[in-house]
């Protein structure tokens, strides 16, 4: 197993840092899956994480100038590592103005991802900061837990309102209730509702637009679905808020898929990064 990669461009470095920062705000531990073309940060839904799952996919070529991978074996040319993204985030933070950043898989007292940044210095010799981030290698027999999640059979798919607005609404609602109902229809309308003994608040959004999933998506598989019909899911508001707060990368497309009363599937797309987050309905 071998992994070495290098980032030289400062824009790529900042972008990568922002992605890692976003992931670090969503979870304390996740799996980093490395393949020849992609990096994935994966959190598989567990009771411990409240059932949320996350899939963040980066196209390696858009970030790294050099990328060499030798996976577990020829037919399984991947490496899966359990890592605390916060460590990676901290390491990248100190490498902000680096001339180059190298990441490689090493073995110190245990397996580590070593990040070495060459920093500008006052002399002819660069400063080098090295971080050894402990990781756990995930054995092949457990890889099935970390496969790309299947697109759920959703009832409605809709673009989200501007994130800033959405976030401020959710922030305020969080003060009033622990659970929030998100409902949307195929007419580009979305409502966020909270309902407590003291107060009910609903925020209405319209003209949001519905992504065309085409012949494959279930949006067209139920052509008789009344466009006005709302589908809803009730989720823990804190999980939604955590997701919205952590975002450091502005997506070019933000949408969500709702499986009636079951799952809220959020998708943020950027040209070289995609982030999917699944929040289960509250029981």
């Amino acid at each position, binding site marked *: 197993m071998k992994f070495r990669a290098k980032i030289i461009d400062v824009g790529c470095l900042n972008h990568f840092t922002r992605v890692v920062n976003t992931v670090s705000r969503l979870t304390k531990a996740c799996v980093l899956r490395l393949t020849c073309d992609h990096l994935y940060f994966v959190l598989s839904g567990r009771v411990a994480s409240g059932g949320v799952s996350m899939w963040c996919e980066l196209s390696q070529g858009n970030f790294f100038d050099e990328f060499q991978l030798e996976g577990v074996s020829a037919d399984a040319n991947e490496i899966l590592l359990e890592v605390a993204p916060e*460590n990676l985030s*901290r*390491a990248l933070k*100190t490498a902000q103005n680096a001339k180059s950043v190298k990441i490689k898989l090493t073995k*110190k*007292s*245990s397996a580590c991802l*070593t990040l070495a940044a060459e920093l500008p*210095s*006052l*002399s*002819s*010799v660069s*400063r*080098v*900061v*090295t*971080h*050894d*981030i*402990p990781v756990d290698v995930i054995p092949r027999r457990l890889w099935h837990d970390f496969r790309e999640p299947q697109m759920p059979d959703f009832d409605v798919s809709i673009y989200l309102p501007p994130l800033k607005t959405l976030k401020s609404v959710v922030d305020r609602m969080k003060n009033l209730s622990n659970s929030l109902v998100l409902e949307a229809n195929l007419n580009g309308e979305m409502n966020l509702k909270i309902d407590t003994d003291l107060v009910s608040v609903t925020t209405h959004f319209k003209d949001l637009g519905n992504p065309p999933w085409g012949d494959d998506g279930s949006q067209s598989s139920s052509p008789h679905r009344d466009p006005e019909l709302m589908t809803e899911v009730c989720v823990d508001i804190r999980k939604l808020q955590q997701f919205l707060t952590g975002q450091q990368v502005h997506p070019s497309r933000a949408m969500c898929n709702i499986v009636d009363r079951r799952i809220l599937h959020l998708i943020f797309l950027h040209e070289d990064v995609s982030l999917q987050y699944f929040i289960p309905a509250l029981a």
Partner: protein
Amino acid sequence: MDCVATGGNVKVLAKAIHSLSRIGEELYLESVDDGLALRSVNSSRSAFACFLLSPLFFQRYQAPADHSFRCKMPIKSVQAVFKSLASLDRSVEKCRIQLKSEKSRLTITLHCKHGLLKTHNLSFQDCESLQAVFDKESCANVLQAQPRLMVDTVLHFPPSLEEVNLSVSSDRVWLRNHVEDGADSLRAMMTELCLSSEEFDHFSVGSQTSVTFCLKELRGLLVFADSSGLPVSMYFDEPGSPVILSVADSVLEANFVLATLSEDSHPKNHVNPDTKHPDTEQPPDDFMSDDMDSFLIAMESSELPGPSHVPTSPPRPTNNRKHSYIEEEEDEQALADGPPNKKFCSLFFGSVLPTPSQLPNQTMPSQEVLASDSEDENQTETS
């Protein structure tokens, strides 16, 4: 005593006090031959700081009639006087510190714009002199750098980091976070920063060395140095001897003395085979806080004349002081007899014995080590 600081020096004084507050809870004030000394020490006696303000720092400096005036007071009450640095800058024209011995009060008066006077009367307690034993000149290794360099290197480590390890070779300096052995040690992230000697204004390394000390207490000095723009000098020897950081200009000298882990309890450092590494790897050790004593720094235990007078009776180790540090230096210091070498003061924090003038009947020591502070729980009395 009557001193007046004016202009920018008021802010410098305030910053010095804020720096000292990062070390300990109490401010020790003493009028010495060279000026006014402001000192602080932490509760475990592993960090000591002293700001010596020469008479030239003040617009007016009148030493107390009784030249050995000293006192201590809670540092928070002094900090409250110099609360807002920004407003000090804007409105305070001068600061007067007076000792009103008949009232046992230290009066600090801030003369502000528009004739406004803010007077603070602080009560103080008598105390022994607080002075660590250290000798910068005898240190084998000396580094000097611009404060920016120090601040930038420290940025690579999280603010919560307690201990840091500094290693030097003939042309490189490594700074690493020190992780105590334990369940978490395998899971902790290890960070290492490598600097070339060229980045330092002065780099004089006797031999490859590696010392570990507490970073937290140091930050107070770095903030002060960064704002004053004064270069920071670092003096250190082998593990166990304290590391001394100082900044100085013509009217002020600040010394921060931090204890270092002693040899036997030296940390297991992360080995990075790719870097040229000084051969200073030490075997794994006990968690260093169990070895608190190895972290104690030398404290002068008497007021007898002479810059580094040491007691003639050896420190009496209590049972819980049997640890690697003592054992290592046993050959030089017989536990039960003979005058200890200066280094062995580092085993304990001594108190200052009363001056002969105060106790005419008492002959000088038996050199007993008395508890330095009645409040200090760490000290034990020798009999």
